[in-house]
């Protein structure tokens, strides 16, 4: 799990004040980084492939062909066939949907749980903060995969439940991050000023604090999507994610394990797919972080 320490987060929390719009500067800084652009293009490519899968996949991803079991890559099947004769390329394309969705939705869940809780903890302080912080610490002290496995096993095996399990297990990171950000921002002058003028707390939170912590959240979200994609693959690898016959890169790796010696292409392609997708999210996340941190070169 890509995890940033408390101290790192505090460094990011410096408010961005400048003459022209911070957003414009950030976007410009981002685009200047070739690596980040490359990552962005890759993400767009994979998303496109996933969306267009029904149109471009050469075969039905669930169509079995018992005479063509575990055939090596050939002209008919560019990436070979799997253990029941299905086309690997088609399954990769459709699997992209499961994996990308798993990444996006898990983190959306994590954000929607973690950010509000973090804001409450950071803004209100006191006992509420103490309670939430201890709870968050506790969840972070439990090995992530164990938490996810237990949750997924409890909810029942399915892609949707795996996403919930990953989302809930990732939420503590966002609680911590949001809390740290809020605590730093809330003592800034403009927030004090807003309070002095008599703004209600919720308004201060939404209008004054939230926009300033979004950059850090965005960076973490991007990096966490990468981790979530790996987490979904891990859960599917253990049999707790996408149910057959629908494909996901992780479940393809699961079935491929026992054919390492006889049909290695079954393990290589899904692994590369996961690697490229996760890489692209990491590149974009890094780019965002560098672009939004005014002290970096």
């Amino acid at each position: 799990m890509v995890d940033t320490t408390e101290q790192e987060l505090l460094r990011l929390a410096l408010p961005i004040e400048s003459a022209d719009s911070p957003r414009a500067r950030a976007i410009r800084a981002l685009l200047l980084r070739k690596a980040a652009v490359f990552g962005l293009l890759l993400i767009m490519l994979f998303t496109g492939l996933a969306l267009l899968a029904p149109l471009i996949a050469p075969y039905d991803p669930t169509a079995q062909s018992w005479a063509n079991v575990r055939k090596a890559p050939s002209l008919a099947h560019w990436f070979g066939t799997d253990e029941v004769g299905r086309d690997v390329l088609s399954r990769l394309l459709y699997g992209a949907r499961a994996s990308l969705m798993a990444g996006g939705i898990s983190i959306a869940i994590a954000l929607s749980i973690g950010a509000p809780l973090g804001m409450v903890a950071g803004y209100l302080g006191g006992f509420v903060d103490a309670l939430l912080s201890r709870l968050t610490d506790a969840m972070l002290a439990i090995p992530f995969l164990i938490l996810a496995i237990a949750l997924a096993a409890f909810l029942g095996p399915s892609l949707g439940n795996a996403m919930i399990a990953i989302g809930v297990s990732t939420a503590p990171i966002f609680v911590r991050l949001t809390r740290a950000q809020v605590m730093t921002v809330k003592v800034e002058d403009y927030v004090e000023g807003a309070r002095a003028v008599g703004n209600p707390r919720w308004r201060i939170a939404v209008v004054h604090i939230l926009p300033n912590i979004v950059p850090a959240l965005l960076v973490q979200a991007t990096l966490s999507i990468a981790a979530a994609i790996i987490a979904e693959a891990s859960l599917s690898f253990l049999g707790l994610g996408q149910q057959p016959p629908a494909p996901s890169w992780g479940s393809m790796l699961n079935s491929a394990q026992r054919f390492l010696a006889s049909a290695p292409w079954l393990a290589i392609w899904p692994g590369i797919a996961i690697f490229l997708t996760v890489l692209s999210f990491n590149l974009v996340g890094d780019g965002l972080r560098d672009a939004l941190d005014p002290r970096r070169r």
Partner: protein
Amino acid sequence: MRSLRLTAAAAFLAIMTGGALGESTLRIGLAEDPDVLDPTLARTYVGRIVFASLCDKLFDIDEKLNIVPQLALDHAASADGKVVTIRLRPNVKFHDGEAFDAAAAKYSLERHLNMAGSFRKPEIATVDHVEVVDPLTITIVLKAPYAPLIAQLTDRAGMMVSPKAAQAAGDRFGLRPVCAGPYKFVERVQQDRIVVEKFADYWNKDAVAIDRIVYLPIVDSTVRLANLKSGGLDLIERLLATDIKDVRADPRLKLSTALELGYQGIDINVDNGAAANNPLGANAKVRQALYYAIDRQALNQVVFDGEFVPGNQWVSPEHPYFQKSFPVPARDLAKAKALMKEAGMSTPFDVDFMVPKGEETQAVAEVIQAMAAEIGINMKIRVTEFATSLKQAEAGEYQAYLLAWSGRTDPDGNLYIFHKCRAPQDYPGYCNAQADKLLDEGRTLSDMAQRKAVYEKLTKIILEDIPKLYLYHRLVLIAHTTRLEGYRQLPDGLVRVVGLKLK
């Protein structure tokens, strides 16, 4: 002086190089870590493999499934079948030096019957009590005649434990078991290894040549085989069918196989709770249609490279109790479709298909799903982890359930607890009075021809109602190095260690 120095040097060398100079170690790779090593409390299949070296039983079986003596010499039943007299082997010692006699046998059997948490109880439930006749003879008094009794005594229920050690340890006996087998317990590190060494006073010690055995649980089949190929292991169990080609092609490895005593099949929820209310569970004709829609030969070919054996009964086609009048059918799609039409269900409809996690179960389920789809049955696969699947099977929270049974020597062991109304493994909730009568009758008869005739009537009923769809029978697949000589595989899957030599 010089000879003394030479001796010392030789001794030093021997200690340093261990295996190279005489102490032989057989390293066996298991597919999972055994549970508790107490014959009364154990339940895993791999546990039995370890017991094969540690704990001898009253009787054993040979390749033809005949009963042969081990710690007991012979058995005789009274006319009414309720009293069984067993003569014991003389001059047998337990690992702790205690003598094996009738009192010890009585103690062991009663431990299996009465100890809290004993999993052997249901296996010998018909035993009323055990009597000591003389130091080498016991009689087992049954509540009712029970033909499978001796067969049960060829498994864990017949394993003898040292009364002294068992009494001292109580339910902690499994941490340091003391039995009468060819090897005695040395150490165990959970999930890592189990080490046993040759027992010097074994009753058949001349047949035991290997000094130590180390059992290593390695869950991943690919890794297990990789270890065997690289020389890190000498023997592995549960080779994958798809790896057979690889082993056959390797000149340093040898394949040992036997057809299993058990079966693989699909339980169909016919009357276990609300989930049974679906077209498949409610209508025998639909189940028969599924029976004919499945291409067992293709299933075998696709998932297992054709190595296993298709089946349609609770014993394999090569088993003496197989009913030849009901042969394993080839796929008959036309008949299946006709049956579906007769049943009059509107297709397609969904069926909740619970599949326990496993290396090959998912592929089997997917192939069956494809086959069933052709007659309008949508099997919706739900890969469930083992513990959950057990719970849900029992509670009837499934509509179809892919399962395996490792099999028992006596055919009753594959039948009774599955098809008797509301028996512990009757997950389908099947209740048929006629079948119950035949089941009860079958287990009291001792003549094979008579039993087979009874079971033939039972087979007809089961193949009409199909609460369980039998699919195929696995081969016990053991791969070992060619340096290991004398290994023979029996259908019960155990790795017998007597009579082996390691070059």
